[in-house]
């Protein structure tokens, strides 16, 4: 596994159970200083538990956590000292039944900071999150988005070395979401804060993270940079999870200098891969990588199939077009193109995609 040169946090052989239920299994993960790491996975995959263990709120059933090169003890005062170098924003923002000012100031007070220093920092951070007029309001009277910003301010004011975020924008409206995302990337850039965020929102991970870890059923199935995860998912589960809509079963029928032919029920598809002939594989194609045309056009793309439109659904500015070309494919095109090409059920089209746009993975790998 690739490890950054200077990890601030390292998780080694970590496993954790709640009673009989295994929540995390044999996790190994290194987070580099200043890195933005997104932990993606469906609800119940163990993201929150992992964050709780990293924040030292829970002691793992097995395995170790290293913080800044030192092994974190399982009990004792040192845990508090290490925890004070981090900050964790929980999924449901819990504001204390105190004024906004006191909410934001409490972490600094707990660290024994002087009154004047606190006032200055709190004022500055409230301005940054756009809550400067709310100082004396009771935090319980705020809206969800405002409360989330108080929670963020309360953590950021501590200038943590590591910021942990658990679904920071779940249940927020789009405007609040955008504000929070802006703040997160601002902090990452300006303060070089290491950020670990759990999210089930793939686009958020894609947008904010340097690297992504996919957590499925308590196992870290794949860790890699954004392109790796989205272009080359390691197995079927990851592919499904990252929105790879076209996952087609086939067999390698020919292989020549890194280009293979994948036989899909009689149709041959070209892809870049090194699997040997006879290997059972999945060919994965992202819907946005498929071009639809009314006639067979000359291009460098290696794959072009005649197809019939079987279904068209609108997704905002885009159309999701399902076609049948001997096998089922889903293409994502703009609504304007849909109208111009008059794409409707029964219409004959040509589906074109590049050999490099096809990701081939071995069938049946389960880690």
């Amino acid at each position: 596994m690739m490890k950054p040169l200077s990890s601030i946090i390292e998780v080694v052989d970590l496993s954790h159970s709640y009673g009989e239920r295994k929540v995390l299994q044999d996790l190994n993960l290194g987070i580099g200083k200043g890195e933005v790491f997104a932990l993606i996975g469906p609800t119940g995959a163990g993201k929150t538990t992992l964050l709780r263990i990293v924040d030292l709120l829970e002691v793992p059933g097995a395995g170790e956590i290293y913080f800044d090169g030192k092994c974190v003890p399982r009990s004792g005062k040192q845990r508090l000292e290490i925890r004070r170098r981090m900050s964790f924003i929980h999924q449901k923002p819990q504001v204390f039944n105190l004024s906004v000012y006191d909410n934001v100031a409490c972490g600094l007070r707990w660290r024994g900071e002087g009154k004047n220093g606190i006032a200055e920092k709190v004022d500055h951070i409230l301005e940054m999150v756009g809550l400067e007029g709310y100082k004396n309001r009771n935090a319980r009277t705020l809206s969800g988005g405002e409360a989330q910003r108080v929670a963020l301010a309360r953590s950021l004011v501590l200038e943590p070395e590591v910021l942990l975020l658990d679904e920071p924008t779940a249940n927020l409206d789009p405007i609040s979401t955008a504000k929070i995302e802006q703040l997160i990337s601002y902090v990452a850039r300006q303060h070089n804060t290491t950020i670990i965020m759990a999210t089930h929102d793939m686009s958020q991970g894609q947008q904010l993270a340097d690297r992504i870890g996919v957590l499925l059923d308590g196992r870290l199935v794949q860790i890699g940079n954004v392109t790796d995860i989205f272009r080359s998912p390691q197995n079927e589960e990851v592919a499904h999870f990252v929105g790879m809509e076209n996952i087609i079963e086939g067999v390698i029928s020919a292989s020549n200098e890194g280009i293979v032919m994948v036989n899909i029920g009689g149709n041959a598809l070209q892809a870049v891969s090194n699997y040997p002939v006879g290997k059972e594989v999945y060919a994965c194609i992202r819907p946005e990588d498929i071009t639809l045309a009314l006639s067979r056009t000359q291009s460098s793309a290696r794959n072009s199939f005649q197809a019939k439109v079987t279904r068209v659904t609108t997704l905002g500015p885009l159309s999701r077009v399902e076609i049948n070309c001997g096998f089922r494919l889903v293409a994502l095109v703009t609504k304007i193109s849909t109208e111009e090409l008059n794409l409707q059920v029964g219409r004959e089209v040509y589906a074109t995609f590049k050999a490099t746009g096809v990701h081939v993975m071995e069938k049946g790998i389960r880690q």
Partner: protein
Amino acid sequence: MTEIWHGLTKAIELIISLDPEVMEIAGMSLRISGTSCLLASLICLPLGSLIYSHHFRGKRGLINIIQTLFSMPTVLVGLLVFVLFSRAGPLGFFGILLTPTAMVIGQMILITPLLLGLTISALSGVSKEIVDTATSLGASGFQTVWLVLREARYAVLAAVTMGFGRAISEVGCAMMVGGNIRGFTRVITTAISMETSKGDFELAMALGIILLFLALIINIVLNRLQQR
């Protein structure tokens, strides 16, 4: 019915005229119950926080016992204090039986379970997420408990109010260990008891109304505090 009416008019008369004896009795009630409630709070709030924040074997059982003691009869407490502090008792050398001090001790024993139990349940009412959030923000164990106490302040204040209410309204213990000595250990409840047995229902009624009036004032003050 006439007793109630006459009692009411007499109470108003006594209050308006600031009758010195009534004022003294009411003052003694306030002083003794206020002291016992304050001291019990000083013990129970930290002790309750300690029980709340620690996990140990038999915690559930301990809380059950504490809650059972909510209904401890006042005369039983009176008996206990009497036996302990009587001249021949183990703590007799203090010589405090039939003094306000003994009454304070008795009332403290009486309301301690109530304050302790209600403090624990007030703190338990604060969500686990609040505790986690505080811990995540770097609060030490003590700082977390302090925050939780502040989060639960209304419920804690309600517990203190209830403790005070039980202390000022009890008669059994005050009578047994205080002795209802005029100008020394006579409080409103013991005075009511005595006036009733003397047949002076009006004065007894007036004192009862004054007691309720005091309770009302204290509640108003505490409500004000809560709303801040």
